């Protein structure tokens, strides 16, 4: 049986490693905090009607993107989803150009042509967030195919929600990836809800069983525990780079907000007590903070400093985006063709 369930282990002993380890966990703390505060600003922009379109917040799921992208190199590839701000930031996007894109400004990552659901950035290996559920599974697999063929040692991570388990193309490409031993990791972020429907109503059998059927290495992890996510990600990335083929990771997580910012009244599909439970007991940032305290890696003041710096960064980024110009209308026909 090639499935495993991971939980994080206590940090190991050697003093020489200790500082590096501590820096690493603090970096993860910082990244998760940045994503949380980025999304708070998005919520604010949206509710103040400054942001056009739709906003799908990643709050609550930060440990998945951060734990996995920590295991990647800058030139490794990711594909993201409509709920993609966290993936983009974790892979190295800067919030100023992201906010500019969210507001449809020329300084945005896509020069205002993509918006929240389509942030893409070759400089950080981001092949693009995708607004078709499951729409990027082929692209990620193709990037892994190119990496293998070109021998550049890169791996591709395909992020998708459990809703994408309903798309047949996922099974087509997992089959191909295993046949061709491609360096791709399929990361299923199971936040329990396909829009407004609990995944148990849409998912027969087991989630991991869908990957093991094709012989993929498959693992399940507590997606609120960033150390556990990172540990399993390091292992899956290493085996992909070594030429051992594709793998599948189910990360159990939770979407704090509605499907999108406008999804306010959610009682018909999930209880407020459930949301409260995840926020108070299973929050990835709080869980890591508690662990950092317990290990003596950081006190409350140190963590508050990280939060304050991230808040300033996000506020400055929003200010930049609001002050940036829209693209001129003569750009509308640019970039249809390369």
């Amino acid at each position: 049986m090639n499935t495993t369930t991971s939980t994080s282990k206590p940090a190991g002993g050697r003093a020489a490693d200790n500082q590096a380890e501590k820096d690493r966990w603090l970096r993860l703390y910082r990244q998760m905090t940045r994503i949380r505060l980025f999304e708070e600003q998005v919520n604010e922009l949206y509710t103040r009607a400054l942001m056009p379109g739709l906003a799908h917040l990643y709050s609550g799921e930060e440990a998945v993107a951060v734990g996995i992208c920590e295991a990647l190199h800058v030139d490794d590839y990711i594909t993201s989803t409509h709920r993609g701000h966290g993936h983009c930031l974790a892979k190295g996007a800067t919030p100023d150009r992201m906010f500019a894109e969210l507001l449809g400004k020329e300084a945005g990552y896509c020069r205002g042509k993509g918006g929240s659901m389509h942030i893409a950035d070759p400089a950080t290996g981001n092949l693009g967030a995708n607004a078709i559920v499951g729409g990027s599974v082929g692209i990620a697999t193709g990037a892994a195919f190119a990496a293998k063929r070109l021998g550049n040692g890169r791996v591709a991570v395909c992020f998708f929600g459990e809703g994408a388990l309903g798309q047949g193309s996922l099974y087509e490409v997992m089959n191909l990836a295993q046949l061709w031993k491609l360096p791709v990791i399929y990361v299923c972020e199971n936040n329990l809800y396909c829009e407004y429907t609990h995944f148990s109503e849409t998912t027969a059998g087991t989630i991991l069983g869908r990957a093991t059927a094709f012989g993929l290495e498959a693992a399940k992890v507590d997606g609120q525990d960033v150390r556990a996510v990172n540990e399993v990600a390091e292992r899956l990335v290493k085996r992909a780079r070594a030429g051992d083929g594709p793998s599948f990771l189910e990360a159990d997580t939770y979407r704090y907000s509605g499907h999108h910012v406008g999804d306010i009244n959610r009682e018909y599909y999930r209880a407020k007590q459930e949301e409260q439970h995840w926020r108070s007991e299973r929050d990835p940032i709080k869980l890591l903070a508690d662990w950092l305290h317990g290990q003596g890696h950081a006190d409350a003041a140190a963590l508050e400093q990280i939060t304050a710096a991230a808040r300033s960064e996000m506020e400055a980024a929003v200010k930049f985006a609001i002050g940036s110009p829209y693209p001129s209308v003569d750009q509308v026909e640019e970039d249809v063709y390369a």
Partner: protein
Amino acid sequence: MPERAMPERELTFAQAVREALAEEMRRDSRVCIFGEDVAEAGTPFKVLSGLVEEFGADRVLDTPISEAGFTGVGVGAAMTGLRPVVDIMFGDFLTLTMDQMVNQAAKAHYMSGGHWNVPMVMRTTLGATRRSAAQHSQSLHAWFSHVPGLKVALPSTPYDAKGLLKTAIRDENPVVFFEDKMMYKLKGHVPADDYTIPLGVADVKRVGEDITLVATSSMVQVALGAADMLAKEGISAEVVDPRTTWPLDEKTIIESAKKTSRVIVIDEGYERYGVTAELAAVIAEGAFYDLDAPVKRMGAMHVPIPFSPPLEDVTVPTEETVAEVARKLCNKS
């Protein structure tokens, strides 16, 4: 020494396609092919025979029967440094690739603000009259011509097939390349040299004075046959082949329409909301005051392609039906 004229080298349409692929694969190691039965089998039409032997199984790859999956793999591979040629055996199977082509390949460049490119070619087929019934006979190129971000090539001769395919492979954009299944054995002059044909340049396949036949792909040979018949009756038909439906060489088409003042547009796709409708609109907008008759459209009938030969044969334009419509337009019927 007296000059000795070299005999013109002839290849079949299938050989011309294969030569284009082989030349580009020799020229550029990033070019690879995948699809169903493309390697040892060389496709059911034997278009790719010999390529896996020359270029190896890591550049000519058989896939499972998963059109959506391997088309998506093509898109991702194109974005990250390869130049895939994805093979969709029958044009009818394009339906299975639509999300990858329409929502992914066509939009990646624009949606990313010009940061990602998708230099991919999708080779596929079109055309009826092969007694293959409704799911193996359609000509669906209009669907792709409709979508911004895609280019669509429709070669009608072995010469054009080689030159257009080489250009398509070198293009930075997704190009859908339609080959008429019935034309694979058609022979024609194909130079051995490395030539390319730009996308978006029509070719006047026959010069004429009285009527213009704008025809695509399989219908070019039909139009040329009709022109031969008409010539014997004193009607001089010009045959214009756009060669690509996007980009579209509107200028050449409109100039010919202005010159002859009568036009039939002929395309094997369904006539309703199809390529013929677009071409007729282009001509009406560009040459209305020079026309002596309304532009006439001829495409596939608005029925699923039937199996039974006598039924199938009436669903698509033929030399006879084109000639008949031309006579009427020229008031010579």
